[in-house]
């Protein structure tokens, strides 16, 4: 509950420059062929950027465990929703033929 932790403008500026650099990096790597890994790489950079915003701009680093729980569980639910839905869609055609009716 130590929301009263005050970061200095210098800390905010550092995070800000890191975010700008990471934006440049994500654009740069978009022009490199990673094959199937392009999107995961882009997402990894986006997650790092989002984490920086969460930890410092939003002071999550100095918040109590409950706040972490709230935000982490919302992301877990989102990932579960995505994975289960995709799990259905991409196994739909992998069906076994029904056994012939013995007549």
């Amino acid at each position, binding site marked *: 509950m130590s929301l009263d932790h005050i970061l200095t403008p210098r800390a905010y500026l550092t995070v800000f420059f890191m975010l700008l650099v990471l934006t440049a990096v994500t654009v740069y790597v*978009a022009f490199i062929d990673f094959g199937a890994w392009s999107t995961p790489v882009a997402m990894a950079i986006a997650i790092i950027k989002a984490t920086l915003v*969460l930890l410092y701009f*939003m002071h999550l680093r100095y918040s109590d465990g409950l706040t972490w729980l709230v935000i982490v569980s919302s992301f877990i639910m989102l990932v579960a929703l995505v994975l289960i839905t995709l799990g259905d869609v991409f196994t739909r055609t992998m069906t076994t033929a029904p056994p012939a009716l013995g007549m």
Partner: protein
Amino acid sequence: MSDTLNGQSRLAHHFVDLQQQKSAATLGMWLFLATEVLFFGGLFVAYTLYKLKYYEAFVAGSHELSITLGCVNTAILITSSLTMALGVYGAQTGRKAFACNSLLATLALAGAFLVVKYFEWSAKFEHHLVPGPDFQFDVTHAAAVVANPELLRIEHVKMFFILYYIMTGLHGIHVVAGIGVIAWLYTQARKGVYSAEYYTPVELVGLYWHFVDIVWIFLFPLLYLLGRH
């Protein structure tokens, strides 16, 4: 909330102390952001599904978007996040003029984001890249940028643009709402409502604004940077 600077009078009757009141308000805001994650989440599910199914079309659609404008807008939003954080810092440390100026800068940057968005959208409208009966897309031209042109379907490009408009549109609505609350915050800050003892609203609006930034951080690579190599 009363306008007096005496901290006690800001205590609503049902809280024991200001600390409890503040921790309740902050938890409430984080819970609200959790609902926002899942509200946008539905769209991210749709995006992930269709992108995996229609990768070629999504690459082709992505090439129609301007990386330059996307980058500019990303930089604008990140900067506005910085100014918002500085606004919170100003309120926390009782620097009224600094807080007000930071909020004003945030408002200006949010406005600039919307202006860039307006130009982007109107350029798309001019090129008939709007899902609907008038939708036009040059498949043969786009075939040059995708790996497997034979898999490219114009209706799937349409789906990319449907997602593009809905996702950036919903994000834009959040930006507009943010401008509204930050403007309100600014007028309150001008009146000297916030101080080192009491700045919860600034902190909470800040959380919201950073969340809007985070959404864009994900939207930018997903929409603008597909298959650029």
